[in-house]
């Protein structure tokens, strides 16, 4: 095989994968050139992950062939793929928190002296890889002590250490700050310069256009388009992805916030570090207040402290002019607060339970009589309402929520909180990992909610989103409020400047 030149490093040709009742992949092609970044795009459920699972041998494709470095291959499992130089950095990091950085990188292939692990060599090798990637992390640090972005870099380092020729990145920036994204992009660029082919899966248009050379778009398991990223713009991409013109990524704002104050937070301080240090702000009726900030700016901690699932050390919460306690979630819900948490899997969905359960669980009071006996008919009606008004794609109410795509799971969770008669909805990164169409629907729901004179607190790391739907933006920095700005008078640069205020 030596000396043979191929135009493509990796080719997936006419891949077909069917599951009983559904054609998940219907003749999909993916051609990755060496020394290029290839963006793979499509809505959730378009088949991107299925395609990657076919590449890594987790699924066995029914038809089609995979050609890697000019040879036909069919990997049996991810380990075999990695041994051949095809590696994947998953969206959900699979690392062992209690072990060290270097052990994670060399797991399963540690250098040995006879039977004993050669720690010195492992340390040295790790250092070398980190230098190549310009990473400043101690190889002996415990994984659990690193930030999400650092852990992501570790995964990339792992791929590099295995001398990977193809690196697949699945939504790598979904939890990174702008600065960290820049660092990641520098690493990606250096990998590209070394001749690697990078498959980049993301929903973020701006990023894709910035980093990619080529783009492949999928829709409903079909191959839609492949071409050069340089000739594309955001609108064209969106059209290809959703298959319809989405002239506007954000719904039009029809209502204005009133002057009446709905929520008044003063000197909020959390009990256990890391937490908020001192946060004061007001939310008006009908207002959508965005919260911007870098990772570690304690945005999540702020709203979780307001909701009472984190312990408050100091400060007051005043709703409609009255002090409220909000010492736990039950009390906060009874006071008219709702919280949609950041990590759907960890503390949002009940994956093994059905949609009806997931829709109604926070509203049990509304279905029960004094003895705690529930009215199932009403629950069924409400679930129907959730599915219909949120446009949840599901065969039935009895489907397990874990079987739905991320966007549909998020819609069910929003439905769960809309079923409760709340006045203040707090959302923590509600559109993370969700496709364009579902995002639009979520924005619409949020705006409709605010239009009823209720208040919304919206945490997001996506600037265009904050600028697109909020009335004001509170920028947090290191557990403090760096500033609150009027959305219509501000810019991405202003917000970034404020984000770094207390660093």
């Amino acid at each position, binding site marked *: 095989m030596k000396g043979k030149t191929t135009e493509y490093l990796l080719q997936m040709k006419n891949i077909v*994968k069917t*599951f*009983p*009742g*559904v*054609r*998940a992949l219907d003749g999909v092609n993916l051609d990755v050139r060496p020394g290029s970044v290839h963006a793979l795009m499509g809505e959730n*459920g378009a*088949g991107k992950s*299925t395609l990657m699972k076919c590449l890594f041998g987790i699924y066995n494709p029914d038809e089609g062939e995979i050609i890697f470095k000019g040879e036909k291959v069919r990997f049996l499992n991810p380990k075999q793929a990695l041994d051949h130089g095809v590696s994947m950095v998953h969206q959900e990091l699979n690392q062992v928190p209690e072990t060290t950085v270097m052990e994670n990188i060399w797991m399963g292939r540690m250098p040995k002296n006879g039977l004993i692990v050669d720690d010195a060599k492992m340390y040295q090798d790790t250092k070398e890889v980190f230098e190549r990637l310009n990473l400043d992390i101690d190889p002996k640090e415990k994984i659990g002590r690193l930030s999400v972005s650092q852990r992501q870099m570790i995964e990339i380092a792992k791929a590099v250490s295995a001398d990977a020729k193809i690196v697949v990145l699945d939504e790598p920036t979904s939890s990174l700050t702008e600065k960290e994204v820049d660092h990641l992009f520098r690493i990606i660029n250096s990998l590209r310069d070394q001749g690697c082919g990078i498959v980049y899966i993301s929903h973020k248009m701006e990023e894709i256009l910035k980093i990619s050379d080529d783009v492949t778009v999928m829709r*409903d*398991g079909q191959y839609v388009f492949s071409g050069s990223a340089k000739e594309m713009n955001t609108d064209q991409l969106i059209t290809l992805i959703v298959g319809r013109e989405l002239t506007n990524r954000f719904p039009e704002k029809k209502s204005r916030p009133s002057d009446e104050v709905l929520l008044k937070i003063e000197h909020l301080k959390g009990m256990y570090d890391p937490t908020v240090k001192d946060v004061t702000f007001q939310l008006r009726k009908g207002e959508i207040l965005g919260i911007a900030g870098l990772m570690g700016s304690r945005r999540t901690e702020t709203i979780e402290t307001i*909701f009472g*699932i984190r312990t408050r050390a100091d400060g007051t919460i005043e709703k409609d002019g009255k002090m409220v306690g909000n010492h*736990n*979630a*039950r009390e*906060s*819900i*009874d006071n008219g607060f709702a*919280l949609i*948490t950041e990590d759907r899997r*960890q*503390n*949002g*969905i*009940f*994956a*093994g*339970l059905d949609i009806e*359960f997931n829709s*109604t*669980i*926070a509203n*049990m*009071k509304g*279905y*029960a009589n004094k*003895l*705690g*006996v*529930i009215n*199932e008919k009403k629950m069924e009606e409400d679930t129907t309402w959730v599915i219909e008004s949120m446009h949840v*794609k*599901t*065969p039935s109410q009895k*489907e397990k929520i*874990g*079987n*739905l*795509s991320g966007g549909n799971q998020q819609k069910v969770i929003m439905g*769960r909180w809309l079923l409760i008669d709340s006045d203040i909805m707090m959302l923590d990164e509600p559109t993370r990992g969700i496709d364009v169409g579902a995002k639009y629907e979520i924005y619409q729901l949020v705006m409709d909610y605010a239009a009823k004179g209720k208040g919304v607190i919206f945490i997001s790391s996506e600037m265009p989103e904050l600028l697109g739907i909020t009335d004001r933006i509170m920028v947090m920095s290191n557990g403090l409020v760096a500033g609150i700005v009027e959305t219509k008078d501000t810019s991405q640069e202003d917000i970034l400047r404020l984000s770094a205020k207390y660093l």
Partner: protein
Amino acid sequence: MTKLKNLVPDMQKRSWKSILLDWSIYIVLLILVLVIIYIDPKFLSLKNASAILSQASTRIILALGVSGIIVLGCTDLSLGRSVGMAAIFTASFLQDPSYGSRVFPNLPELPLIIPILGAIALCASFSLVHGFFVAKLKVAPFIASLGMQLVIYGLMSIYFDVVNDSAPIGVLNPKLSKLAQGAFHIGTIRIPYLVCYAVIAIVVIWFIWNKTVLGRNMFAIGGNSEAANVSGINIIRNMLIIYVIAGIMYGIGGALEVARTGSATNALGQSYELDAIASCVVGGVSMRGGVGSIGGVVTGVLLFQIISYGLVFAQVNPYLQYFVKGAIILLAVSVDTQKYIKKK
């Protein structure tokens, strides 16, 4: 169909293999029953069916108790000793009034209900303490229940030793014996009272699981306790109630067990928890929590009881009986785990 097309592929991925996996434990048990019938065709008789049902009745009550704890994602090894405690307590206060060497010779004849309620209250209080360690102090459920098991065994043995010099407490009030050994007849079919108690327990627990907020909360806590917390569920309180319900079931089970067998020692109930937990697992209650059904629990107990009884009936080597039971548990847990792995 357009709707279906948008779904994630995993949803339709139910091949005959996964269906077979779901039913594999039942298929194996059915084969076992067929083997037993082959060894001794007399196994198929009304008399045996009635015996199996009466034996299964207390076990169903116990399994229903522990199944709630398992759905919470916990486990309870103190079940057997709680049963023993309830049995000794009930027996010591309900001996035949005409019997000379009673535990409490000067005690007047008590109405049945008082000592039985006492036994239930006793078990419920220990379960409450047990639940407190797990729910409030966050002790690993396995370890907490191991500790409770020893604590209960120790205390009950002291009581047993002090009141009756560790001699079996027998010669029970015939009314108590009748409670468990009696039966009524429909035509020629004999229906033991025990079966009726089990049916009542099934209905009550089914109602709690399916028709009450407590039941929903139990599944929520077992399914994802952090999400349950965010949803405003009082995790500690709900867990304590489920533990107390389990304790009540152990108390009832213990009283019925001593009534059925006619005497109690501190060895009564030993390792009952293993059969109860194994039955739950065989019936599809996941040890991971959040998954299970009353139908499954009842089926699990019945199947397990049929096998146990059948092995004895067919005079299979007792050591081999242990082996078979152990293998069934391993198979059931493996199947449960496979389902979980598939989800990923």
